[in-house]
């Protein structure tokens, strides 16, 4: 015997299932591109005990991200190192040489996530291959992901060791003159990719 009340409850099931289905529908992560005007890629080095900031003005990034599709989410960044500006003509000129980035041979650095991302409280951690000056290093890249409607912010800060990439080897390895640790600060403003 179906009472009216039981009938209503039964009728509710398909609706709930349908709602769940729509919620889970994007089985693929969202593809984003960066808004270059609002995004920034900077690094903080130390020279003779004093911090300086370099800006990588020209870079491209493709981000595919969904908080529940971490296995299919990817980060892919390519940086034009010639666009580095450290607010010192002498320093910028030095960075171009073979001691540092060697623009003549390796003008580009790349960053590509490898394998599934791992969820964190406010974003995820990507394992990624960072290639600078032809040297590849697998790094853990934790980032915060903040969705604002259709756009989103991706923020991260990682510390690298310049010697891992052969930046300033030999006599230039002296940590007391040019610090080994370099903080990289990533602020990407993402918008959905056109297609």
């Amino acid at each position, binding site marked *: 015997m179906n009472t009216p009340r039981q009938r209503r409850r039964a009728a509710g099931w398909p609706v709930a299932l349908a709602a769940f289905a729509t919620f889970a529908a994007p089985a693929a992560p969202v593809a984003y591109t960066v808004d270059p005007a609002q995004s920034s890629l900077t690094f903080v080095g130390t*020279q*003779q*005990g*004093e911090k*300086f900031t370099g800006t990588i003005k020209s870079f491209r990034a493709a981000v595919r991200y969904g908080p529940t599709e971490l296995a299919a989410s990817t980060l892919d960044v390519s940086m034009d190192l010639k666009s580095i500006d450290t*607010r*010192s003509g*002498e*320093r910028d000129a030095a960075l171009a040489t073979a001691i540092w980035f060697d623009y003549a041979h390796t003008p580009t650095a790349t960053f590509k996530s490898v394998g599934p991302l791992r969820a964190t409280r406010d974003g995820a951690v990507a394992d990624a291959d960072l290639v600078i000056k032809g040297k590849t290093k697998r790094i853990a890249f934790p980032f915060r992901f903040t969705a604002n409607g259709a756009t989103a912010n991706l923020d991260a800060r990682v510390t690298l060791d310049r010697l891992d990439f052969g930046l300033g080897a030999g*006599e*230039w390895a*002296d940590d*007391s*003159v040019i610090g080994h640790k370099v903080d990289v600060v990533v602020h990407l403003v993402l918008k959905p990719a056109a297609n």
Partner: protein
Amino acid sequence: MALHSTAYRWGAVARLFHWLTALGVLALIAVGLWMTDLPNGMRKINIYALHKSVGITILGLTVLRLLWRLTDDRPLSPPGQPAWQQRAAQAAHVLLYGLLIAMPLSGWLYNSASGFPLRWFKLANLPHLVEADPALKELAHGAHEFGAWLLIALVVLHAAAALKHHFVDRDDTLNAMLGRRAKDSK
């Protein structure tokens, strides 16, 4: 050992200031003239850093020295020295003090205007006097170089005068700075 100077002799503090400064300035002049031709590299950076650290030390020493001088006595001029010589010696000493301040300051200004960090003997970073500024950089460099030649000329004159007092006039001017017992003191 008397710390303070008397009418016949420089005290230990004044002598220490004087000879430390002499040592530092001679080293700075020699290294300064030599280092600019070094090939670019870590060695050049380290030698420049040393030049800057010693130069800043001279600035600190000179400030302390002038403060000490306010409280200290000073030996009398040698008896019978003509007035023009006294005035010339005084003018040279004022100029020397001025350069002991102006040389480090112009170097520091040059460094700041170039946008370089300034670290004192790898121990402490000093503030930038100005923002990076190419025009000011040229100006400060010119002042440092002109000051260097003026300082070299004055140091030669200063040393020549001291030697003349000692070997020609045979008075106690140099002895008073060497801490030797002056002939006419008790």
